């Protein structure tokens, strides 16, 4: 008998245009809100990740005038840092030749973009630049627990590193496994991971690391990939070692500094640098991964890397570049990202002082994540309430009809079925229209870009299924309650309401 009510529900949707129109409009508004919300959520989440990744990439010049590097060990959930002794700070490069590189990132192509030749000619006038090369950077994820949806994914930066400066490996005196990255550059899938970064030890299995690299959803007119983080390429890397480079976002911490155990600690505000979550691979390996994941060889980088003769020159070079490249924002790492908060406990006093960084807040990330949570929650809540209200109206408007159906022999489950089928019909059509209305606006710019419409459409279909599915799910969930209520009400009451 259920089929009779399914057909009846379909017929009701098709015939009662006033009700159908109102219901569909209501569902469409809710779905549109959900579409915007989910888009914002995804955007903020990705934006936060991109923001994080940009700390080591675009538009940032890395420099250091005070270093901290990894301490002797790790505590659970903490990174340990020890500032270099003051007398070594001025000559850190002697100890840390891996810091001889700075990274300059001109802005993405625009009207005032200069060509590589122009850029090099500018650099000619600035002493201390040893080499310029395109930055080999890709956002990636370390997959802990295997590839796929079930795994925990940690955002990292996959950095293709030229080994020209690393051929003469020298051990670091204080870091037992701190040999420099010196793999053969023959495209073997090998990597070096940050020893004190957020890549947990259990992500390594038998000396191998599983990473996931986003694929290309399309290409911008500038020849840069539009990355699809929902579709990734899993790559297993042989880990040759773990490095201990301590460059990254600058944060302000209070260092408990003292001359020795007997000396009372004197809190001081200092600038230190936090590890960036990097996975280094040889440049050639990077090129292979890039081509595999994105389908094209690396033709154009979004930034350039400057190898400096000395990191002491970094700040001056940044200043010079800012002067000769008007309109460019040249910053040192990462002035833009001064930490908004940091918790620490003194590890021990003495020389050198040690702090244990418990938690670091990256302002941009924190703000966007907060916005995401609050905005998404509020908008989703409103959209959900709208669907609930629609369902309530759908049922309460039709108590007489339900009463008549019960009088002629419909059972409660038939009534519920009737309402739910109608709800699904309204939801599918309404949510589809609402989603398309929003997506059409966002899709139009793609028509004028070099982004693949096929890929864009695939993304849209996936997002559409999500929004329509959610809307329908909420409709079903909240349609059941008033439908059950009406179905359980006596016929006399239902008809008496009239």
């Amino acid at each position, binding site marked *: *008998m259920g089929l*009779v009510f399914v057909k*009846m529900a379909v*017929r*009701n949707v098709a*015939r*009662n245009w006033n009700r159908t129109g109102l219901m569909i409009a209501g569902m469409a508004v809710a779905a549109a809100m959900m579409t915007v919300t989910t888009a914002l959520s995804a955007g903020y989440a990705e934006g936060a990740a991109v923001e994080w990744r940009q700390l080591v990439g675009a538009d940032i010049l890395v420099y250091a005038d005070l270093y901290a590097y990894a301490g002797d060990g790790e505590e659970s959930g903490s990174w340990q840092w020890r500032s270099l002794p003051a007398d070594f700070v001025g000559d850190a490069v002697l100890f840390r030749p891996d810091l001889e590189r700075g990274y300059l990132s001109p802005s993405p192509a625009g009207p005032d973009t200069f060509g590589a030749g122009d850029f090099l000619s500018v650099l000619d006038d600035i002493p201390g630049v040893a080499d310029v090369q395109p930055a080999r950077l890709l956002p990636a994820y370390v997959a802990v627990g295997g590839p796929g949806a079930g795994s925990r994914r940690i955002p990292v930066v996959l950095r293709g590193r030229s080994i020209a400066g690393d051929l003469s490996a020298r051990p670091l005196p204080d870091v037992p496994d701190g040999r420099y990255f010196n793999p053969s550059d023959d495209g073997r899938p090998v990597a070096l991971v940050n020893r004190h970064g957020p890549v947990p030890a259990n992500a390594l299995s038998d000396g191998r690391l599983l990473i996931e690299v986003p694929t290309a959803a399309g290409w911008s007119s500038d020849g840069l990939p539009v990355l699809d983080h929902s579709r990734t390429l899993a790559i297993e890397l042989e880990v040759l070692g773990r490095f201990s480079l301590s460059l990254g976002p600058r944060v302000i911490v209070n260092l408990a500094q003292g001359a020795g155990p007997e000396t009372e600690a004197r809190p001081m505000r200092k600038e230190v640098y936090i590890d960036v979550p990097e996975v280094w691979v040889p440049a050639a390996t990077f090129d292979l991964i890039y081509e595999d994941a994105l389908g094209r060889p690396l033709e154009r980088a979004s930034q350039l890397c400057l190898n400096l003769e000395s990191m002491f020159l970094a700040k001056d070079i940044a200043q010079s570049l800012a002067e000769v490249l008007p309109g460019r924002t040249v910053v040192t790492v990462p002035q833009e990202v001064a930490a908004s908060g940091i918790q620490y406990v003194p590890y021990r006093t003495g020389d050198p002082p040690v702090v244990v960084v418990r938690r670091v807040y990256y302002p941009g990330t924190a703000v966007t994540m907060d916005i995401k949570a609050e905005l998404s929650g509020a908008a989703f809540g409103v959209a959900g309430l709208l669907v609930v209200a629609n369902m309530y109206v759908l049922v309460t408007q039709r108590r*007489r*009809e339900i*009463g*008549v*159906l*019960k*009088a*002629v*022999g*419909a*059972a*409660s*489950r*038939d009534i519920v079925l009737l309402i739910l089928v109608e709800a699904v019909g309204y939801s599918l059509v309404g949510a589809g229209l609402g989603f398309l209305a929003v997506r059409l606006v966002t899709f139009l710019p793609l028509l004028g870009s070099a982004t693949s419409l096929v890929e864009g459409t695939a993304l849209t279909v996936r997002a559409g299924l999500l929004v329509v599915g959610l809307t329908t799910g909420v409709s079903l969930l909240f349609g059941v309650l008033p439908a059950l209520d009406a179905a*359980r009400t*006596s*016929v*006399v009451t239902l*008809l008496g309401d*009239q």
Partner: protein
Amino acid sequence: MVETNDRPILRATRLARRFPVGEGVWALKRADLTIARGAFVLVTGPSGCGKTTLLNLLGGLDRPTRGDVEVGGVLFSKLNESGLARLRRREIGFVFQFFNLLADLTAAENVELPMRMVGLRKAEAAKRTTELLEAVGMSHRARHTPFELSGGEQQRVAVARALANQPSIVLADEPTGNLDSKNSAEIMELFKRFNRGTGQTFVIVSHAPGFADYADHVVHMKDGEITGIDHRGGGRG
């Protein structure tokens, strides 16, 4: 116990209904009633005497506060909601004062619905629908929706719907309450014709004085109780 004769299709025993309004209102204080198969019964009485309450209880649209109803040997108290729905579907047809046709369906679809609900094949249901609409003189309006029909026409369709599954009992609550005298008479004639032709039992609630002539038995009610029954032996028609 008031009995219409000794071949019962419907039996109500100590039936009472109290509505929880204020301190509680006994709309039906006690009703003992046995109705024979094929009887044409008119329930009459002043407004508010409990006629509709009694009819609702006899049809299983409402549950009694006390007492029980038995239709074709099945006690309502033994049935759960879906069992009661199944009984209404097959054994009982309803005609309401306000017609209560489904507005989204055509006249034919309204009549066909109960048949489809009992699993009758589409073709068979369509054939019977045509016959019923012809019988009530509405075949020419089969594709019209209720909004396109007059009150009398809607009630004719409602009668056809009530008869769709050839129920043992047809219960009609003030079926002519919204009709003029001509249409009222036609509806009553229809009832009587089906009663005679099919042997179905009709229980009609009405306070219109002239309808007693159609009935085999007239049940009088007052203040929530059955005060008497007239056996009229065949009635008009």
